């Protein structure tokens, strides 16, 4: 008997019981805060030491144009967002070593979560492959207000498991030394969140 058969035999006859699963009560809240999700998102993201800015969409080129250094942008990022910035397009793909030498990356996002101050990338157009937002030391992410979900359940409803997903809450951090939080380990050490209306 191979390992698969033996493990399944040990587990016995366990047919699907969709009714039993569906009967699990879910009395928890769909969201913890009513009211302005954008305000809450800005506050919560800042709690985790992201640099947060709220600006009118029209100001985006000026704000991104003010970034100093070389930034990479993924395919599908609206060109007018970075009209004022010195950017490298990830097409053809920039090598990992070259990404490491850049100053940062500018992307959009799929969804954001107000309650937890989280940005979620599904690595679709305007967000780039996963390495793009990992290797450069500064991640600038543009969050359009409509993408902000109130809480975790709503965010997951909006996301597709068919895509790779990266949830980002603040810059990289560790609590491994005496359980106190320190920002800045292997992921980007700076996270800037630009919220547009």
């Amino acid at each position, binding site marked *: 008997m191979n390992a*698969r058969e033996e493990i399944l035999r*040990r587990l016995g006859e366990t047919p699907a019981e969709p009714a039993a699963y569906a009967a699990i009560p879910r009395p928890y809240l769909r969201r913890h805060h009513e009211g302005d999700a954008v305000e809450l998102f800005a506050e919560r993201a800042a709690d985790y030491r992201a640099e947060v800015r709220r600006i009118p969409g029209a100001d985006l080129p000026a704000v991104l144009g003010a970034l100093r250094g070389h930034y990479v942008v993924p395919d599908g990022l609206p060109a007018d967002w970075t009209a004022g910035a010195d950017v490298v397009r990830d097409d053809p793909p920039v090598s990992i070593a070259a990404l490491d030498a850049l100053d940062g990356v500018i992307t959009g996002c799929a969804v954001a979560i107000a309650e937890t101050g989280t940005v979620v990338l599904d690595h679709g157009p305007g967000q780039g492959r996963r390495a793009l937002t990992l290797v450069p030391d500064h991640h600038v992410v543009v969050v359009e207000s409509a993408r902000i979900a109130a809480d975790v359940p709503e965010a997951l409803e909006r996301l597709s498991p068919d895509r790779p997903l990266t949830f980002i809450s603040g810059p990289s951090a560790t609590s491994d030394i005496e359980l106190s939080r320190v920002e800045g380990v292997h992921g980007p050490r700076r996270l800037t969140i630009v919220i547009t209306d």
Partner: protein
Amino acid sequence: MSTDQRMAGAARMPTYVGMPAFPEAARDAVRDTRLRRNLTHATTTIRAKRAAAVSELDDWAELRETAKRIKDHTIEHLGHYLRLLEEQVTARGGTVHWARDAAEANRIVTDLIKATGETDVVKVKSMATQEIGLNEALAAEGIRAHETDLAELIVQLGHDRPSHILVPAIHRGRAEIREIFRREMPGAPDDLTDEPARLAEAARTHLRERFLKAKVAVSGANFAVAETGSLVVVESEGNGRMCLTLPETLISVMGIEKVVPAWQDLEVFLQLLPRSSTAERMNPYTSIWSGATEGQTFHLVLLDNGRTATREDEVGRQALRCIRCSACLNVCPVYQRAGGHAYGSPYPGPIGAILSPQLRGSSSPVDDSLPYASTLCGACYEVCPVAIDIPEVLVHLRSRAVHGRAEKAAMRFAAWTLRSPTRLAFGQRLAGAAGRVLVRRGGIRRLPGPLARWTDTRDAPVPATETFREWWEKRERP
């Protein structure tokens, strides 16, 4: 227990070589004042923060109850959900492997790495690979596994053992970490201070090249969604993202109990885990992927290693709900004093005391002692985000542990004494007299004869010089 079962135990999760049973191991740990100071500092800090993070959610109790029910349902129908997971991961271009025990899992991972021709792999912190002793198995085959989680790196560089589920180097203070880095980390800066930010930066620099060059990574998984074939890794530092994203080949080793039925179940666990574990609303990074992603080769190793046997026990199986948050360690008065090493397995603390003996399924002095490594105060049950009644399982496992003939005789004698008021009064007077003889420095450190077994692991209380009954008789009446 048959020889076969014993062998099965040995192939599962090895007890650390030369590991004494809990009481002996704990005695040394309790005497280590620096260890106690480090542990007290770290666990006290996290307890307060966790309480705040949890109290933010008014529906914590409902989330917890739902999580418990989802896990119980999954464990009940585990065969079905594992088949579904396999089907979905395969449909999305991944390859699924099954391992009955540690040896088989190590063999699978070793062969997969050898097939790539690589001799160095990067690793994301994973309890499952700790449990099976993967790093040691790989080393025996000439493959170097580089731990990339900061705490795991501290443990690996310090030639040490993990002592906490979340923070394996919790027993080390910042000054010790600095010393380890300066001694063992090639290229560590000469002026390295013990500031946590500087230490984290040293780790970043040390591992950067390794990440960018790595061809093969090994990870665990926090959750796997059966209906979508999605794997979830929850982390803080970005070392997880580095390992999951950059290498061409990714091998994830996952205990079979980590599966959850559906996508919507993540909405429960992604709220419970970060708050209960690192006391954050959300951990810095969570990666979710379904099958082979962005051109990567993806292997999933499903690990039994005593889990199907644990599932057989109606009371003990609730240990399989565990999501490895480590909240139970941080509140445990025994853990706080004894530290993680005393538990003799990668799973320390209250959850380790019920998980290790069940997973190993063997009868050894260490495993027999673990269910007693608790005061049954119940704090662990209270904080558990999936409501594992750890005290209930401890008591259940105590009843299964081997009790010596002397212990049984002593219990029968105690019952005989307690049944009669005359015998009890005589016994109390005798104890009072004996106490006056035995007391040293305000306490009884060692009882004579066979009773010394009792004081091997604890001080005995000094019996009162006068019993309550005697005082009652003599007291002045109004």
